[in-house]
């Protein structure tokens, strides 16, 4: 393995669990995007943005309608009511999406492999007063990709997916001064990824 000197050492307050978590999150994302070969997919952010801006668009439209029409008319009240309901509905949808679907996801990405397009979704979490970094790895090989060899074209049908959880104490990755040992960290991440991929092929 090539020893690469990292231009900036990541140093955090090691008594702050959230600092430790976000340092690991950043390092993990950076690893997946650079050395991991994954291209980041922003679907969670995009879906939330679309829901949020749609809600705001309804709110703006309703407010404009109320601005140009007198309040006393039943139609004004009706459309104002509709815009209020739609605004809060889309707000709620956005929050529900963030809470139930995005949850603790810190990275989603994809890369092409001989088996098809491989997608990855990484969640991370910490629990209060518990110095462990929990990683949730979801991997997916989607069967939509086709590989053609010679004249025959084979399409992998079905979706293979796998899910693994890993928990590591921060003490293995941070030294006394709160500096992240990147080599150590990345070695563990490589192990986790390989481990998850291995279950994939079964």
């Amino acid at each position, binding site marked *: 393995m090539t020893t690469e000197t990292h231009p900036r050492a990541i140093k955090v307050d090691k008594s702050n669990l959230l600092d430790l978590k976000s340092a690991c999150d950043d390092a993990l994302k950076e690893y997946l995007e650079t050395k991991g070969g994954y291209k980041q997919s922003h679907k969670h952010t995009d879906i939330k943005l679309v829901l949020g801006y749609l*809600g*705001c668009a309804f709110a703006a439209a309703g407010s404009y309608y109320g601005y140009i029409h007198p309040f006393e008319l039943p139609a004004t009240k009706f459309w*104002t*009511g509709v815009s209020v309901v739609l605004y809060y509905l889309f707000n709620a949808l956005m929050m529900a999406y963030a809470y139930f679907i995005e949850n603790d996801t810190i990275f989603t990405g994809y890369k092409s492999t001989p088996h098809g397009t491989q997608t990855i979704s990484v969640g991370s979490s910490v629990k209060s007063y518990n110095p462990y970094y929990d990683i949730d790895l979801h991997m997916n090989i989607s069967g939509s990709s086709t590989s053609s060899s010679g004249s025959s074209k084979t399409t992998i049908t079905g979706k293979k997916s796998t899910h693994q959880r890993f928990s590591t104490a921060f003490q293995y990755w941070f030294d006394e001064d709160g500096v992240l040992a990147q080599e150590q960290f990345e070695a563990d991440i490589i192990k986790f990824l390989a481990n998850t991929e291995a279950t994939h092929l079964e």
Partner: protein
Amino acid sequence: MNLRQVLTNSLNVLMMLFGVFMSYKAWGLYTNCESPLVVVLSESMEPAFARGDILFLSNPKKAVDIGEICVFKIPGRDIPIVHRVIDRHDSPETGNQLLLTKGDNNNVDDRGIYQELYINRGKMWIEPKDVVGRVQGFLPYLGMFTIFMTDYPLLKYALLGGVGLVVFLYE
């Protein structure tokens, strides 16, 4: 900051503004009153209301009664007035009302105010359509802040800009 970050932060600012605005709209629909919160600007209703009091308004279905305090607009005048109803005449056929108002702290009723503008000459009463809200409750002095901001508009923009900037730059 990339485009998504900018869009996300802008959305946060927008949702903060629309969140307040839309709940005000919802409150307005609930109370059947376009602006359910107003701030008293004059001393004509002393000692009931002082300058800077916040009034909670609504428009119930039932007819306006004597003794109720109404916020009304006189055609051609922008600033609404909050005064007490001292006389009512109900039409038996249409149910429409003719109302006379007076400020508790004024010596005379409001007919002089009704007729101040030439277009309103001969206006002896106000009607329910002039009434924008009926007072249901009040909070003393909290509106002073609003009066202050209206007097010094720069303060308003500074406050809005400051809050917006904090939300925008917050990640």
